[in-house]
C-alpha cells in the first residue's frame, strides 16, 4: 500500500495496538509504569507520523466495506486525510503525548494496577479520537464519537469509589447520549434518503443540487444535536463542569483540548451540507453565542479552579460554534486549535497548583507565585492567551471568530461574544490574582512540580507564544474591520482592570458588587447554574423514574395480574367442581335423574 495511506493508518493503529496490548496482557498492565511506557511510546511515534502527514500536506480518501449488503456495502470505514484532519491529527497526538507524560508525575502516588488501567483508557481515547478525526463518513464518525464518549465516561469515573465521580461519569454519559439520539436519527434519515453515509458522496450530491430532500433541515438539526451534547452547548452543557471529577490531566485532554471540540470539528467537516440550510446555521450561531455568554457568567461566580476552567471551555466552545454558525467554520477550527493548546496549558497548570495546594478552592490558595514561579509564569501565559491579549495565539483566533460573525451580519451573537470577551478576561484574572498573588496564606506546602509535569507545561507555553508571534509576523488571519482589534484588546483590558480593582486593589468589594440590584439577581441565578441541573434531576426522578415505576407496577399487577387471577380462578374452580365427585351412589342417581328430566323437558318445549 502507498505511504500516503499507510502512514495515517499507522497513526491510528499505534494507540490501538497499545490499547490491545495493555488490555489483554494483564501482567504488563499491572506494572503501572511499564504500561505507561508502552502507551507513551505508541503515541510519541504517532505524533511523529502526524507531523510528517501535516508537513507533507497529505490528501487521500480510502474506504473499505464494513456492513456488507446485497449490491454493495451498506456502510464503510476508512480514512479521510485533508488539511483539516491533518491539523487535528497534530493537535490530538501532541496534547495526548504531553498529557500522558504529565500524568506520570500527576498520578505518581496511584497504585500500579490503577495507573495501568489509566493508560489503557488513555490509549483507547487516543485511538478513538484519531478515528473520529480521520472519519470519511457519518457512520465512522458516529462510531468513534460514541467511543470517545465511552473513554470520557471511564476516565471521569477513574476514581470510581468516589460517589461524586461515579455520578458525574454517568451524568456525562446520559446527557451526551441524549444529543447522540438526534445524531443517530439524523444520519439514519440521511442514509434512507441518499443511500450513503460517506461525506464525499454527499458533498457531490449537494453540489449537483441532488440533495433537495424536504427533510434536510430537520436532518441537519438532528445531527447538530449530537454536536450540542458533545460540545457542551446550551442546554446540554451541564455535564461538562461535573466532568471535572476526573483526574486533571484527563480534563485537559478530553474535556478541553480534544473530545469536546468534536462537535465543532463535525460542523467544519460537513460544512457543505450545513451551507444548504442557512436557517439551521442561524440557530447554531445564536445557540453558540448564548452558550458562550451564559457559561462566562457562571465562571465569574465559581470558586473551584477546575470548574472555572470548565465553564471557560464551554464558553470558548460557544465561540467556535458561533463561528461555524456564521459560515466561518475555518475561523472556528482556528480557534479550536489555538484553544486546544492554551487550554491544555491552563488545565495542566491548574493540575500543578492543585497538586501543590491540595485543594481546588482558589480562595484557599493565595500567594502561590512566590512558591511556584515557573507554574505561575506559564499559567499567566495561558490566561493572557485565553483573555485574547496580543501577541499570543488566542488573540488572533478570537479575532478571526469575531470578524467572521460580524461579516455574517449576526449582530446579536456578535454583541454577546464581545461581552463574553470582557467577562473572560475578568474571570481568568480573578483566578490568577486570587490564587497566585492573593494575600491569603496558601494551604498545604506549595512547591514546583517535577519535570514530568513541568516539561509539558513549558512546551505548551512556548507553543502558545510562538504560534502567536507567527501569526503576528505572518499577518495572521484577521480580516475583520479595522476597529475590531482595538475593540477586542480594550475589552480584554477592561476585564483585567475590573478583576484587578476588585480582587487586588480592593477598590471594589466583590461582595457589595454582587449585592447591587441587577447583578444580585444574576449572581444568585448563576450560582444556582440557572436551575438547569435541578431541571434535569427533576426530569430524571419525576418523569423517567416515576414512569418506570408506573410501568413496573402495571406489569406486575395488571398484565401479570390478569394471568394470575385466571390461574387462581382455575385452581379455585377446580376445587369447587371436585366436590361433585363425592363417591356416594345417591348423588350420582340424582344426577342421572335430573339429566334425563332436563333432556325430556328440552325435547318437549324447545324443539
Amino acid at each position, binding site marked *: 500500500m502507498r505511504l500516503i495511506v499507510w502512514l495515517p493508518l499507522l497513526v491510528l493503529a499505534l494507540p490501538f495496538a497499545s490499547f490491545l496490548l495493555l488490555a489483554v496482557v494483564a501482567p504488563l498492565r499491572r506494572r503501572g509504569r511499564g504500561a505507561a511506557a508502552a502507551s507513551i511510546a505508541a503515541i510519541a511515534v504517532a505524533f511523529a507520523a502526524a507531523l510528517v502527514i501535516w508537513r507533507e500536506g497529505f490528501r487521500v480518501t480510502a474506504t473499505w*466495506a*464494513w*456492513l*456488507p*449488503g*446485497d449490491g454493495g456495502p*451498506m*456502510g464503510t470505514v476508512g480514512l479521510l486525510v485533508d488539511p483539516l484532519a491533518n491539523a487535528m491529527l497534530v493537535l490530538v497526538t501532541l496534547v495526548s503525548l504531553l498529557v500522558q507524560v504529565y500524568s506520570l508525575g500527576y498520578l505518581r502516588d496511584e497504585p500500579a494496577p490503577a495507573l495501568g488501567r489509566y493508560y489503557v483508557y488513555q490509549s483507547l481515547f487516543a485511538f478513538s479520537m484519531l478515528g473520529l478525526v480521520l472519519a470519511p463518513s457519518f*457512520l465512522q464518525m*458516529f*462510531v*468513534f464519537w*460514541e*467511543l470517545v464518549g*465511552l473513554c470520557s465516561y471511564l476516565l471521569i*469515573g477513574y476514581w*470510581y*469509589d*468516589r*460517589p461524586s465521580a*461515579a*455520578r458525574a*461519569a*454517568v451524568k456525562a*454519559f*446520559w446527557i451526551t*447520549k*441524549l444529543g447522540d*439520539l438526534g445524531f*443517530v*436519527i439524523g444520519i*439514519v*434519515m440521511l*442514509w*434512507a434518503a441518499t443511500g450513503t453515509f460517506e461525506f464525499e458522496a454527499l458533498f457531490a450530491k449537494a453540489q449537483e443540487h441532488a440533495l433537495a430532500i424536504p427533510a434536510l433541515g430537520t436532518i441537519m438539526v438532528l445531527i447538530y444535536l449530537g454536536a450540542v451534547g458533545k460540545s457542551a452547548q446550551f442546554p446540554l452543557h451541564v455535564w461538562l463542569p461535573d466532568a471535572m471529577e476526573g483526574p486533571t490531566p484527563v480534563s485537559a485532554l478530553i474535556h478541553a483540548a480534544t473530545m469536546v471540540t468534536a462537535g465543532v470539528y463535525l460542523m467544519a467537516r460537513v460544512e457543505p451540507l450545513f451551507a444548504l440550510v442557512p436557517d439551521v446555521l442561524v440557530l447554531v450561531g445564536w445557540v453558540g453565542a448564548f452558550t458562550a455568554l451564559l457559561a462566562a457568567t457562571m465562571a465569574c461566580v465559581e470558586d473551584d479552579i477546575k470548574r472555572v476552567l470548565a465553564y471557560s471551555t464551554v464558553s470558548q466552545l460557544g465561540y467556535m460554534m458561533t463561528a461555524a454558525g456564521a459560515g466561518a467554520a475555518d475561523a472556528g477550527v482556528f480557534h479550536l486549535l489555538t484553544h486546544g493548546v492554551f487550554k491544555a496549558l491552563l488545565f495542566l497548570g491548574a493540575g500543578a497548583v492543585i497538586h501543590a495546594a491540595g485543594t481546588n478552592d482558589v480562595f484557599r490558595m493565595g500567594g502561590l507565585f512566590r512558591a511556584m514561579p515557573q507554574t505561575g509564569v506559564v499559567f499567566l501565559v495561558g490566561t493572557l492567551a485565553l483573555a485574547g491579549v496580543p501577541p499570543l495565539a488566542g488573540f488572533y483566533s478570537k479575532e478571526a471568530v469575531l470578524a467572521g460573525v460580524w461579516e455574517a451580519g449576526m449582530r446579536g451573537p456578535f454583541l454577546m461574544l464581545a461581552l463574553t470577551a470582557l467577562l473572560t478576561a475578568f474571570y481568568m484574572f480573578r483566578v490568577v490574582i486570587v490564587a497566585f498573588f492573593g494575600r491569603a496564606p496558601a494551604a498545604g506546602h506549595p512547591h514546583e512540580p517535577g519535570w514530568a509535569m513541568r516539561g509539558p507545561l513549558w512546551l505548551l507555553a512556548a507553543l502558545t507564544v510562538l504560534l502567536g508571534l507567527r501569526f503576528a509576523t505572518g499577518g495572521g488571519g484577521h480580516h475583520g474591520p479595522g476597529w475590531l482589534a482595538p475593540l477586542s484588546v480594550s475589552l480584554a483590558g477592561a476585564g483585567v482592570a475590573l478583576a484587578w480593582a476588585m480582587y487586588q486593589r480592593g477598590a471594589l468589594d466583590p461582595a457589595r458588587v454582587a449585592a447591587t440590584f441587577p447583578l444580585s439577581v444574576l449572581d444568585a441565578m448563576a450560582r444556582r447554574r440557572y436551575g438547569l441541573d435541578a431541571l434535569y434531576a427533576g426530569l*430524571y426522578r419525576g418523569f*423517567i*423514574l416515576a*414512569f*418506570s*415505576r408506573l*410501568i*413496573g*407496577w402495571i*406489569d*406486575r*399487577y395488571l*398484565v*401479570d*395480574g390478569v*394471568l*394470575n*387471577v385466571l*390461574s*387462581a*380462578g382455575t*385452581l*379455585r374452580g377446580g376445587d369447587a367442581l371436585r366436590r361433585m365427585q363425592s363417591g356416594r351412589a345417591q348423588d350420582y342417581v340424582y344426577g342421572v335423574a335430573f339429566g334425563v328430566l332436563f333432556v325430556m323437558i328440552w325435547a318437549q318445549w324447545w324443539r
Partner: protein
Amino acid sequence: MTRLPVLSLITWAPFVGALLIMFTARHRPRAVRLIAAVTTGLSTVLSVWVYAAYDREAAGFQFYEKLALVPPLGISYELGVDGMSLLMVLLTSVIIFAGVFASWTVAVRSQEFYALLLALVTGVYGVFVSLDLFVLFLFYELAVLPMYLLIGIWGSTGEVRPRGIFAWAYRETGVGTKEYAAMKLTLYLLFGSAFILVGVFALYFSAGSASFSFLDLEAAAFPPAVQRWVFLAFYVGFGILAGIWPLHTWSPDGHASAPTAVSMLHAGVLMKLGAYGVVRVGLGLLPDGAAELAWLVGTIGCVNVVYGALSAMAQTDLKYVIAYSSVSHMGLVMLGAATLTEAGLNGSVFQMFAHGIMTGLFFALVGLVYEKAHSREIRRMGGFGRVMPGVATAFTVASLSSLGLPATAGFVAELLTFMGAWRSDHVWWLFPAVAGTFLTAVYVLRVAKQIFWGPPSPHFHHLEDARGPEWVALVILTAVLVLFGMVPGLALALVDTATVPLLSRIVGP
C-alpha cells in the same frame, strides 16, 4: 455425497453426552463436567468448522441430510443450514460451551442437571437445523420441556411480595417461588406450542403435498386466508417464546428463578428459537401473511422495546433487571424483522446473535455475583469493582453492548434495525426504538454504578473475583461480543445470503 453428517453430529453430540452422564458418571462430579465440556466442545468445534466451510457464493441450504421417517405421511428427518440458521447454531454452541463452564460449581445433583441441560441443547440445535416442520416441532418440545425440571429443582426463589387488589391470586399461585416460575414458563410455552402445531397442520393440509418439508411448503402457494391466520398462529406461538408483549411475563419470573446456565441458555438461545421461528417459518412460508401483519409485529415490537426498558428500570432484583432487558431487546429483534427490509432483517438476525451472547454474559455474571454475595438485591450492593475487577469489566462490556455502543455487537444490530425502520412503511417505529436505547443506557449504567462503583458496601465481606473455569465463560463471551462488533461482516456476509432471498419472496426482488 458420502460426507460426514456434520449437522447430525452437532445436534446429537450433547444428547450422547447426556446419556453418558446418566449411565457412567454417577457420583463422579468431575467426570460429569468433563463429559459435558467435551461433548459441547465437539459441537462447538464442528459448528465453527461448518461456519468456515459454508459456501457463501452458492448460499441456500447446505450440509443437507435426509432420512425418511414416515414415508406415507411425508415426515422425514431432513437437516440443512443456511446463513441464518448457521449463525444461530454458532450462537448456541458458544452459549452452551460457556454455560457449562459458568455452572461448574453446581453441586446438588449435578449428574441430572447436566444431563437435562445437554438434552435441552440437542433440542435447540435440532430446531435450528431441521427442515422438516414435524421434526422441528418435536425438537422444539424437547427444548422446552426439560426447563420445567431445571428451574423447579435447581432454581432459586426470589423476594416478590404480592400486593394490591390481586394479592389473593398471587398467594394462590405462589408467585416468586421457583415452582411457580417453572410452572408458569412451561404452561406459557405449551400454550404457544399449541398454536404452532395447529399452524403446521394447517399448512400441511392446505398444501396438499403430503410433505412436512420446509422446501416443499416453500414452493406451495397458500390462499390469502390461510396466509393471514396461519401467520398469526405462528406469530403468537413462536412469539410467546420470543417474549412478545403482553405474553412476556413468564420470562422475567422464569429467568430470575432459573440457575445460571439455564438462564444463559434460555434467555440467550431459547428466546431466539421463538424469533427464529417467526422469521424462518412465518416470514419464510407465509410471505403474504407476513406483509399483511407486519404492522402488528412491528408495533408490538416497539411496545416491547420501551415497555421492557421501563420495567427493567423499575426492578430492584438484579436478575429481574437483566430478564426485562431481554424483553426489551427481543422487541428490537421483532421490530427489525417486521420492517421487511434488508437492513432491518439483517439487524434482526444480528440482534438475535448479539443479544444471545450479551444476555448470556449478563446471566453468567449475575450468577457469579449471586454465588459470591448470596444476594440479588441491587440496593444492598456497592463498590464490588474493587474486589472483583474482572467481573466488573465484563459487566461493563455487556452493558455497553446492551445500550448499543459501537465496537460491540449490539451497536451493529441496533443501527441496522434503525436503518430498516426508517425505510419501512412505518417510519415512526424509529423513534421508540431509539428511545429504547436511551432508556437502556439509563437503567444499565445505573445498575453498573450501584453494584460496582462507589464506596464498598458494608453488607458484604470476603467477596472474590471470578476463578478458573468461570473465566473461560467470561473471556469467550466478551471476546465474541467485541469481535463481532468490530467486524460485523463475520456474521452479516452470511446472514445476507439468507435474508435477501427470503425478502424477495415477500416484497418482490
